[in-house]
């Protein structure tokens, strides 16, 4: 499909180039006639009026082709509870704006074609019409009001970070260039932390004197139980980062000097999400691309490492410019059943045991 699109566009460009070369040829003798030759005449108006019409048709084809060719680019159904509402709002908004796009571009270019200048054609002196202007002020007002209200209701729900529904509290900690995770442990409270406590293995700067922090668990892996609300608390040790979890429709900046929050409920385990039809197809396509690349590397005798086959995992990526390796600041995410999650969590050492182990070896 992409190949088709490229060919289509190349063909359009070729046609344009051919037409343009004609203009240049046609234009040449005229240009000797002085300044008048550099002002559009009826022939130019006719030609470029038609071009504008062709242009809008080509633009429609391009837009439709993009929607078809790139349908796999759209993110699959959201893996979080609020994500379904998000996707509906996005779809509705997209339908609205594409409708407006099709109508207005059609009018703009069609009028440009229809009323292209001709000698003797009289333009209509039409300077004002209150009713028309009222209509096209009122219609956007109504449509936008609807979208705003819907968006604001979703927004209020989304931004709710209360702990009434007993969320799992997880700290996501960002640094140049990676992520760490801290679970709040049995007491469900994250211990105080500040960069000034960073020392040795206390890489997240947990306050060793704060009792709440003793049962905290620090790890490199972000695992979440399915269908339980998760309250993320974000902290950064150096510069701005942004924790972007596209499949959960979640994003929040990570700001040094303050704690930012985002709460959502994952609804699909990694295993389920991987086996959806969309994801199987997408991964198959990606692996085919990777296989071809490897083959080409072998053919050209390149000494690059062969690419491993890809298996989908949720990821969290940095989405705020943060330095040289910004482009590769990622962390794998796993969503699993509550049991699996608890089993995994129980195998990890708490902050207290880690510190104690250090103290004894000293």
């Amino acid at each position, binding site marked *: 499909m992409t190949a088709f699109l490229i060919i289509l566009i190349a063909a359009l460009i070729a046609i344009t180039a051919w037409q343009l070369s004609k203009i240049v040829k046609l234009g040449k003798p005229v240009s000797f006639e002085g300044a008048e030759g550099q*002002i559009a005449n009826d022939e130019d108006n006719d030609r470029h009026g038609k071009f504008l019409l062709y242009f809008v048709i080509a633009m429609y084809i391009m837009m439709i082709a993009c929607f078809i060719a790139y349908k796999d680019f759209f993110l699959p159904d959201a893996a979080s509870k609020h994500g379904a509402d998000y996707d509906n*709002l996005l779809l509705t908004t997209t339908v609205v704006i594409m409708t407006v796009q099709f109508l207005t*571009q059609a009018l703009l*270019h069609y009028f440009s074609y229809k009323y292209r200048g001709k000698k003797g054609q*009289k333009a209509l002196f039409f300077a004002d019409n209150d009713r028309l202007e009222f209509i096209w002020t009122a219609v956007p007002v109504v449509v936008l009001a609807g979208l705003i209200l819907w968006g604001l209701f979703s927004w209020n729900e989304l931004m709710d970070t209360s702990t009434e529904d007993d969320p799992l509290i997880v700290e996501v900690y960002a640094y140049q260039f990676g992520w760490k995770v801290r679970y709040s442990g049995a007491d469900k409270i994250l211990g105080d932390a500040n960069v000034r406590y960073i020392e040795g293995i206390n890489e997240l700067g947990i306050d060793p004197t704060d009792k709440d922090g003793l049962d905290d668990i620090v790890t490199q892996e972000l695992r979440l139980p399915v269908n339980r609300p998760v309250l993320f608390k*974000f902290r950064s040790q150096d510069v701005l980062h942004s924790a972007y979890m596209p499949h959960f429709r979640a994003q929040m900046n990570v700001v040094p000097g303050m704690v930012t929050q985002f709460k959502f409920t994952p609804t699909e385990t990694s295993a389920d999400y991987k086996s959806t039809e969309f994801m199987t197809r997408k991964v198959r396509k990606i692996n085919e691309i990777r296989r071809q690349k490897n083959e080409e590397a072998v053919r050209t005798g390149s000494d690059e490492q062969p690419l491993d086959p890809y298996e989908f995992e949720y990821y969290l990526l940095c*989405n705020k410019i943060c330095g040289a*390796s910004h482009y590769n600041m990622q962390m794998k995410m796993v969503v699993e059943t509550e049991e699996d999650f608890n089993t995994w969590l129980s195998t990890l050492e708490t902050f207290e045991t880690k510190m104690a182990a250090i103290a004894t070896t000293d």
Partner: protein
Amino acid sequence: MGHAIATDSHEEGHHHHKETFVTKYIFSTDHKMIAKQYLITGLIMGAIGIAMSVLMRMQLANPAEPNVVFQALLGKWAPDGVMNPNMYLALVTIHGTIMVFFVLTAGLSGTFSNFLIPLQIGARDMASGFLNMVSYWLFFVSSVIMIGSLFVELGPAAAGWTIYPPLSALPQAMGGSGTGMTLWLVSMAIFIASSLLGSLNYVVTVINLRTKGMSMTRLPLSIWAFFVTAMIGIVSFPVLFAAALMLIMDRSFGTSFFLSDIYIEGEVLAHQGGSPVLFEHLFWFLGHPEVYIVLLPALGISSEVIATNARKPIFGYRAMVASILAIAFLSTIVWGHHMFVSGMNPFLGSVFTFTTLLIAIPSAVKAFNYITTLWKGNLQLNPAMLFSIGLVSTFITGGLTGIILGDSTLDINVHDTYFVVAHFHLVMGISALYGLFAGVYHWFPKMFNRMMDKNLGYIHFWLTAIGAYGVFFPMHFVGMAGLPRRYYSNTAFPYFDDLADTNKMITYFAIATAFAQLFFVYNFVKSIFYGKKAPANPWKSNTLEWTTGDKHIHGNWDGPIPEVHRWPYDYSKVNEDGEYVISGQDYVPQHIPLQVGEEEMNH
């Protein structure tokens, strides 16, 4: 500036009072010369900015692969021809800075405000020619410093054009935040001074120096746009200046306006209590109005060009003025939509969503009014007209996706992805560039007394129009896939592997479009010297600048300043008997008194 000197020295001077080469071409106080200086400096900066975007696109098409072009142009920043990630970020940063400030603010607004305000309101020059000259030379100095910063040891500023601290404040975080960032801040501080001097001059000139009969409701829409743009600039640029000053203090004098609790390179910094979010507020308090500082002049120019070439009055003059004012007002209270996920209070997000979607309304009114202006016109499809129609097209396409981004909920998942890049490039980048081109094609005869080649203009337009959509329409879909912007390479995530072909295609379009600009460059330079001599009023336009004759004198009109008797849009106006007001002529310039039996438009 050597360029401008070379080009203009070929014109025959019309010396009314003694002028030396220096006072005429370098330290000129004539607004027309200053406009040309702005234009040519802006175009040179534009060429640099566009070249940078081509380098970025080449990197994105073939990530981390050696390229002779990189080796040749980037030197030590591309060892063995492979671009260094810091260099990529530096290109992102300087491309953004140059295009937004040096090309689309100074190059567009500086050129056309300077050129058109005195000519179209009937004034002999700006209120203060001297300040105007100082404004240009400050701009020139800031351009030189910005370009100079490309050559410092640790690289130019690379924290993005938004220069969010702490990244921009800490040389430990990235090399570009050392001397490069200092030069960036110095350059921008000078730029802001230049911009303020210019803006104050424009506002004072429009208020005080209108000729007899030129009431505010008879001003061409271009002047309204420049006037309001200048006011937005006066309101918002000082805030950026404050932010830059505070950032300089954080960087150099150990204050903590924006920094707090930072551990970097194994060391805790002393900074305590500052907030990067504060910087974001200050930055976007300018940053968002800046979008309209860039766009409104382009819309003003296209209003003039569309009305003239449609041979029709602009539809809904009063609504257009009201829209400009509404956009100007709203533009100063929407900045928070850049910060929905910045960690600011979510309630603020609600407010900013509301104000942001409000601004869509005057924008929609403007678009509809342009379309209606075309309806039943007699369209003269000159290159300037094509660029204006193209502007309306990209303004709509790019503006509509703003409804997604301006909605705090929807922004969560597209924030800082390529969706945003596609959106703002279409709505402010391409649209404003089209406005710039429309202005150059339209007023070139007035600026240089010569005509540009229309056929080269047509080629330039069509290649640019196809290329711009070819680059930016598919880019929305790449963004929808969740691909973040400002990534040096997209291959670190296998999930994005299937975007590679599209990224390549976008790059081909970008390179082709960039090269298409050479048609413009050639046409521009050649026409200055060899273009056909322009008639006094080639586009049969109503506004006052076409009444000066072909003399280029400081003072604009050889004789008395013309008096204005009507609004500027009496195109194809007919009497009750259906005949043109002036028989055989479909336009009535502003300085022509009301004819016998003619009724004045009560717009």
